[in-house]
């Protein structure tokens, strides 16, 4: 490797990788510093402030454990981890809710409309809520998290082709729903906002 006109024959080409691999904690902290705010925003958009900190801690704990497997483009990977962490949290909460309902001998509501964790325009929330979970996530990864479809597909854990299909379906459905709504024939179920 020639440096400043000086050549050292014993100098390996992969020296940076060798040195980079020497300190796990430093690597993790660099990853954390580089992506913390983006992952935080991702979590806030989906679960709100009350759960975001737990989601972040769990997500980065997974990153710490699997540090050697984190790809160079780490952000979609981290979004994917955060997505699964959120799903686990929500599953736990749902189970808890179902248990309470069963104890109260109340039939649980099967509608399970999506509720935005933080303030989103009501009309949009209803429209987004009418999408399937996958379609909604595809749309939000692009519109809110600013990922291009290729990176968003990695975050969603599917192929680029499948992702494009989901995104296409989501957009087509929203256009149709909004058109129906504007013509006054909407049959979207509006969920009453809880105070």
């Amino acid at each position, binding site marked *: 490797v020639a440096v400043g006109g000086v050549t*050292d024959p014993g100098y390996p080409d992969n020296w*940076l990788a060798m*040195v980079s691999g020497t*300190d796990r904690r430093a690597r993790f*902290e660099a990853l954390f510093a580089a992506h913390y705010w983006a992952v935080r925003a991702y979590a806030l958009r989906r679960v709100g402030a009350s759960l975001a900190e737990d989601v972040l801690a769990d997500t980065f704990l997974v990153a710490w454990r699997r540090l050697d497997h984190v790809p160079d483009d780490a952000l979609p990977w981290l979004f994917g981890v955060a997505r699964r962490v959120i799903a686990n949290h929500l599953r736990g909460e749902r189970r808890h809710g179902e248990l309470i309902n069963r104890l109260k001998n109340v039939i649980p509501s099967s509608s399970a409309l999506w509720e935005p964790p*933080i303030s989103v325009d009501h009309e949009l929330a209803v429209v987004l809520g009418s999408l399937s979970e996958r379609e909604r996530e595809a749309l939000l990864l692009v519109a*809110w998290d600013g990922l291009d479809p290729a990176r968003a597909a990695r975050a969603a854990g599917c192929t680029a082709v499948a992702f494009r299909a989901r995104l296409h379906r989501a957009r087509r459905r929203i256009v149709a729903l909004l058109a129906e709504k504007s013509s006054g024939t909407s049959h979207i179920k509006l969920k009453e906002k809880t105070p």
Partner: protein
Amino acid sequence: MNAKDWVVARVADANPVAQVGRPSSRDEAEAERVLQRVLDAAGKQRSARPRAMGFVSIGALAASAVIVVAVVALVTFGHGRPATTTPHRAARSGSFALTPKPPVRNPPAINVPPGMLVLASLGVHHGARFFIYGQRIRFAGRLYFCLFVGNQTMGSSQICPPWPLRHEPTPVVTGGFSPKFELAAAVAPRDETCTIVGLPGGPYRTSRAPIPPALKVGGDVYYSFVTFPGASAGQLQPFGLGAGYFSLGGNVRCHR
């Protein structure tokens, strides 16, 4: 804009957490808390690893068995042995494992330029040749080195290889510095005349080549550079194109 693009734009407009501005001190405190939580949890997991425990107990069991056998053998057969047999082999090999670790110095809180303070904290004194590998980033009021810093005496034409970093424990600097170090962080544009804080000489010049972004933190991009030895006018190159005697990207100040 077609209807489909309009949908994405409409949803994007309603983004409830748009990334604008710098995070507040409260947000940064939250980030610190999360980081500490993760590191604590990681530390706990590592210390409570069941596999390691298994090895320890198996090892302890094996050692006990060896000691018992040795004592029995000594009691049974030991009387006939000549007293001149040298029993030092075990003690000698044990001494190899007792090589003391070099002390790691704490960063001194003194009024010196940030760059020199960093170096002094690593035991690199004024006038000494040194090298720093890796990027530095500022996060949550702290300055972090991603990698290692080392020092050694080098000839003017020598390139410092990474080998010593592998063989000698080198101080790892992650955090713990004064928030003053935030001043050291700067974004250096291309082909600009610069000075380097804490480094006499210069003026230096940033690379004309595209400078790869090192890390983006809270909207700021931080770079690392490498200077080449022997360049009287000084030359800064993007870190990674080569290795020099030091990289002080965070300490670059540029003048137009």
